[in-house]
């Protein structure tokens, strides 16, 4: 086979202001995609634009701001049907014969309903509440709740002491309705996972291990960790299950509904192989389904097997990708014994997924959330499970709208990574992340200082929590539980009637 000349052209253009460049070679050292090189003979820094992924690492670290990285303005003849992205993918496939891989969440303009929902605020008949001066409560308990409280009373007299005799189910409190999504060690770096767990512990919320096992050194964060049991069963043993606060069965992922997790062999280093219990350098491809779950009754058996293994002391969560018949599936999951249901929407992130699946399979989280919440209420089983949602939450406005649509709490992944450096270059699957987040190369991983990242992450949680409190207070509400499913505080703009019906909200002005 002859060497093929690539028909691709650079996606990004690197512009170097030579008046500013001091030849310090920071860009050369920072770029993990081998774009920049320094030629001492000519005292010149060169750039190979073709390698650039647009991650902005060099630009941010250039001490003299000599660099500008921007999308290549070169365009073929404009064509509404055959857009540049299509041309690129076609050419890549013609040159490789493979599935086009990508990382992060869907980047297409598929209806983002958060941008079409607006919040209410109190005026006159009801005072808004100032969270700087009045209490404002965000605490949330995750897990199955009993239907009612039963009391025992010591005396028959009214006013006598009462003691609740209701057997409480295992519940996990979080101090803000924001949790860090499932992101596995291997897909993300050791330091990235450590930062997430440290931040969750510092703030009183939770971080999810993802499906790649749980490094032993991180077990000390056990009060703030959800462990995953996915189709690959990586790293799962009795201790793993019992060390965690919540056990989550992963059946699907919003970025790639219908297929299992992908971890390219390049990222399976010695430590990753030990944690996952797989050979070093081997691709870790989780089976598409869980092979012991081909039906809802099988799911019930796994749920109860995990409850047995953890002595009925931990809520069992079940995560699915948001797909067409999510409401019926969710109802079955609750009846099969799930204490927490997780829905991951089409904008959910990933470390590696076939691009065609990421961009075309699943539904927006807003619609799935609204319909699942409504279905569970109609069936009278809403309090039997907490409802967590994931998939592209960008700010506290998205979070509070999700609560009003019926979510108990929200998983964030991409937003947390942006807080510690990520610029959404979508090259997580290459293992070369210049920011040290989705790589296991020691020289790159060490770029991520866990203590500094923990500070950035707790700052993010604090900022969002403050914003949520401000918005809640504006609505005249001082406890998050009073907004949950309270869609009267939402109005829609720019939506069709069927979309408003699906979301269960009125149009603005009504």
């Amino acid at each position, binding site marked *: 086979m002859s060497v093929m000349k690539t028909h691709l052209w650079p996606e990004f253009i690197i512009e170097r202001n030579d008046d500013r460049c001091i030849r310090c070679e920071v860009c050369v050292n920072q770029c993990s995609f081998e774009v920049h090189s320094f030629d001492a003979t000519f005292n010149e820094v060169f750039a190979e634009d073709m390698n650039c992924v647009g991650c902005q690492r060099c630009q941010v670290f250039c001490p003299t701001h000599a660099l500008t990285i921007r999308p290549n303005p070169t365009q073929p003849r404009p064509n509404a049907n055959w857009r540049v992205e299509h041309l690129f993918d076609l050419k890549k496939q013609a040159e490789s014969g493979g599935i086009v891989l990508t990382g992060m969440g869907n980047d297409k303009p598929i209806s983002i309903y958060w941008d079409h929902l607006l919040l209410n605020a109190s005026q006159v008949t*009801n005072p808004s509440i100032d969270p700087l001066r009045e209490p404002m409560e965000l605490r949330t308990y995750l897990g199955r709740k009993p239907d009612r409280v039963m009391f025992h009373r010591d005396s028959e007299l009214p006013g006598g002491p009462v*003691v*609740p005799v*209701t057997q*409480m189910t295992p519940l996990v409190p979080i101090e803000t309705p924001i949790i860090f999504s499932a992101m596995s060690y291997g897909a993300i770096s050791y330091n990235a996972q450590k930062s997430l767990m440290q931040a969750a512990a510092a703030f009183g919320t939770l971080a999810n291990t993802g499906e790649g096992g749980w490094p032993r050194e991180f077990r000390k964060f056990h009060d703030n960790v959800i462990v995953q049991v996915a189709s690959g069963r990586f790293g799962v043993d009795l201790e793993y299950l019992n060390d965690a606060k919540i056990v989550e069965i992963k059946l699907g992922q919003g970025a790639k509904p219908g297929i299992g997790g992908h971890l390219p062999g390049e990222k399976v280093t010695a430590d990753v192989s030990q944690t996952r219990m797989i050979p070093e350098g081997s691709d870790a491809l989780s089976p598409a389904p869980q092979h012991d779950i081909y039906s809802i009754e099988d799911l019930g058996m796994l749920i109860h097997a995990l409850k047995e293994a953890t002595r009925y002391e931990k809520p069992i969560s079940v995560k699915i990708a948001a797909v067409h018949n999510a409401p019926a599936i969710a109802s079955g999951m609750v009846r099969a014994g799930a204490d927490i249901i997780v829905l991951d929407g089409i904008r959910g992130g990933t470390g590696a997924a076939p691009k065609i699946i990421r961009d075309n399979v699943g539904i927006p989280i807003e619609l799935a959330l609204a319909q699942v919440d409504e279905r569970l209420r109609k069936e009278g089983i809403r309090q039997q499970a907490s409802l967590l949602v994931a998939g592209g939450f960008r700010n506290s406005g998205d979070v509070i709208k999700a609560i009003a649509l019926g979510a108990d709490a929200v998983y964030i992944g991409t937003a947390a990574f942006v807080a510690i450096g990520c610029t959404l270059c979508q090259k997580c699957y290459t293992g070369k992340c210049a920011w040290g987040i989705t790589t296991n190369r020691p020289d790159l991983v060490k770029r991520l200082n866990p203590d500094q990242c923990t500070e950035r992450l707790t700052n993010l949680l604090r900022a969002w929590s403050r914003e949520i409190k401000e918005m809640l207070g504006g609505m005249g509400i001082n406890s998050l*539980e*009073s907004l*949950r499913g309270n869609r*009267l505080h939402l109005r829609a703009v720019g939506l069709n009637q069927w979309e408003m019906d699906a979301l269960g909200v*009125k149009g603005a002005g009504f």
Partner: protein
Amino acid sequence: MWDIGKKQNPYSDDKLHDACGIFAMMSRSGRTFAGDIPITAMENMHDRGNGLGGGFAAYGIYPDWPELFAFHLMFETKEAKAETEKYLHQHFSSMDGEEIPTRPHPGITSAPILFRYFLRPNHHLLEGLSEDDFVVQRVMHINLKIDGAFVFSSGRNMGVFKAVGHTEDVGRFFKLDEYEAYCWTAHSRFPTNTTAWWGGAHPFSVLDWTVVHNGEISSYGTNRNYLEMQGYFCTMHTDTEVIAYAMDLLARRHGLPIEMVCKVMAPPLWKDIDQMAQADRDLYTTLRVIYGPLLMNGPFSIVMAHQGEMVALGDRIRLRPLVAAERDDVIYIASEEAPIRLVEPTLDRVWIPKGGEPVIVRLDDAAMAKAHPEGRQVLK
């Protein structure tokens, strides 16, 4: 049927907004008072209402038939009355009907036909239901299915009287000065729309449970969702309705003591719960976790009452006024101190209850046995 939702809320707002004045008084020893006392108190707070609704609940007013359910009905037409009476005959064994006594008053216009019936459920029709549940179902049937009929009171040895108009006028129209009650609660409305429907005035009632309410419930959507799961349908779209249903669910169906009902509606803050001793921490955590959707958020003062018991409660950050006072065996509750001072110038004690701290008044045992021989509600 009267389309209650349309009558109550012709603009199809999410819910009605009211602001109001409330007054209540109760004697622990069962001493009774004529209705001119609450009428005088409400007249003093005239400006808190706007004439679009007022009403009273009175306990102990039918001492001759304490075991019979006293139904107060409003009818739009004679046909509605005939149909309702036929229905009542089918389901109740003893039945005495009479017009509710009224005197003409210039402030009260377009009155519907007002009748009351003293009823005993037909026992062979109970089919395992308690008498209370049987009555609730009959009331729901009449209100939702019979065109032009509305039951606005259905408890034993108590009655609700309400109308469109200023509260003091409503009281005089219904001749409340001729009734003697050991407990009175009263309410004037200031709705923020122009709806004027007699059934929409306070108190709201289910069986002998009544609620008068001043405030706006910001958690209405959450409360309503939860209550719908429990089989209550909010046909009137008022926030007072969700309080009445929450009270019925918690106190009657789930058997919570009234102080616990208050702690569901206005729970202690988590930061306070965290500081409590183990037993209380468990109790309040359990209540909040399970009944979180029934937390009443937003500004409110409410007075709830049922047989032999009255409770006043303000929201946990005290966004609506509530004053309590005591003189001998009588407790007074009002939106303002002035009406209490007007009807009882010498008081032993006047205080402003803390947010979320209920003021509970109970009949003593002897008075209870006399007024409500069927006994207190007991926990199961």
